[in-house]
């Protein structure tokens, strides 16, 4: 064990009997060990001397005041031994239910709070996405680009333009690859966003 640690314990009186005997044998022969012990003893004296005295406390009056404050406080709850009563599986299930409930409530409250209105699909009479032509077959290397967005004929439809601005923030592009020959142009895989 570290000699300095033992000397510190010797100085504060917590050294074991076995270590005490061994350390005293060392102290009898080793001037450095004795110097370390002297330093510990000086610190102990300083700590004792530097203790700031408190004002006198009227302990009976303090106890009465604390007791009155305790009387005003809530009674201690009978038990918090949930952990020992519930199995880990039960605790996990309870926690899962709590989390799921919290998420549900949060989503519900957020929609209530923001007043968000989900799109009414039935309100749109025409399809939003139209893919025209067998472009994949026409592509020489088996790669085609398909643009996704409002059909041109719906451009003037206010419902579509409103939702498309929310749901499609960029002009989306879908890359379709087929056949056994890989595309030679890396540009074909460079999406524009």
């Amino acid at each position, binding site marked *: 064990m570290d000699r300095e640690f033992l000397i510190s314990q010797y100085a504060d009186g917590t050294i074991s009997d076995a270590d005490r005997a061994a350390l005293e044998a060392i102290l009898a022969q080793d001037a450095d060990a004795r110097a370390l012990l002297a330093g510990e003893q000086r610190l102990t004296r300083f700590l004792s001397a530097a203790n700031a005295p408190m004002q006198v406390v009227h302990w009976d009056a303090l106890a009465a005041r604390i007791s009155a*404050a305790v009387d005003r406080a809530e009674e201690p709850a009978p038990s918090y031994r949930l952990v020992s009563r519930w199995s880990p599986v039960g605790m996990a299930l309870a926690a899962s239910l709590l989390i799921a409930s919290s998420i549900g409530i949060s989503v519900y409250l957020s929609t209530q709070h923001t007043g968000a209105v989900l799109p009414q699909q039935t309100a749109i009479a025409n399809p939003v996405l139209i893919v025209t032509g067998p472009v994949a077959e026409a592509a020489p290397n088996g790669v085609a680009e398909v643009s996704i967005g409002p059909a041109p004929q719906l451009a003037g439809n206010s419902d579509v333009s409103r939702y498309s601005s929310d749901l499609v923030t960029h002009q989306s592009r879908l890359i379709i690859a087929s056949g056994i020959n890989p595309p030679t142009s890396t540009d074909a895989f460079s999406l524009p966003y």
Partner: protein
Amino acid sequence: MEPRSGDLSKSKLPTDGELVAETLGGDRKAFDQLINRYQRQAVAVSYRLLGNSHDALEVTQDAFVKAFTSLSTLQKPEAFGGWLMRIVSNLSLNFRRSRKTRSQLPLDDLLGPVEGSAGDSGGSEWMARGGDPLHRLESEEMGRRLKTALGQLPEKQRLAIVMFTIEEMPQRDVAAALQCSVEAVKWHVFQGRKKLKELLKDVI
């Protein structure tokens, strides 16, 4: 080795565990016995951490109220003392942050003059008793130096030094307060003393 006697189980007084059980069973008077048993230690520890008698009394009162309302969460009723000191130390360490917003309790009636001296400014009872102004000034300076040095220690070392070395609490209670082993308390005390020797080398 546990040279400091804090063990009440050998006396005829009820143990801490018995008093905790009686309190939880609805006997409020049992908690009053715990108040009487630990209020001095609580005030002393808080005072060493805060350096102010009023604040120490306020923290002590808050600590007992918190202990009472949380008593059923105490896992080892026999370790009430250490558990209470943990509450005291936590409240003390948090006290400064909330000090400005707290209303001062009227505590003056609980306090008398400083023991053995004329001031409460950080001097030593040991030296101030002589009444020699020079010694009193020297003692007050030592108190200030100690307070500053303690403030530079890591929290666990500071608490270990305050509770064990200065207030002479049993290592077992300090361990309960710091939520560590007795061996860890010894190590914190050792490291704390080592740092204090370095910080105070010009005055010791």
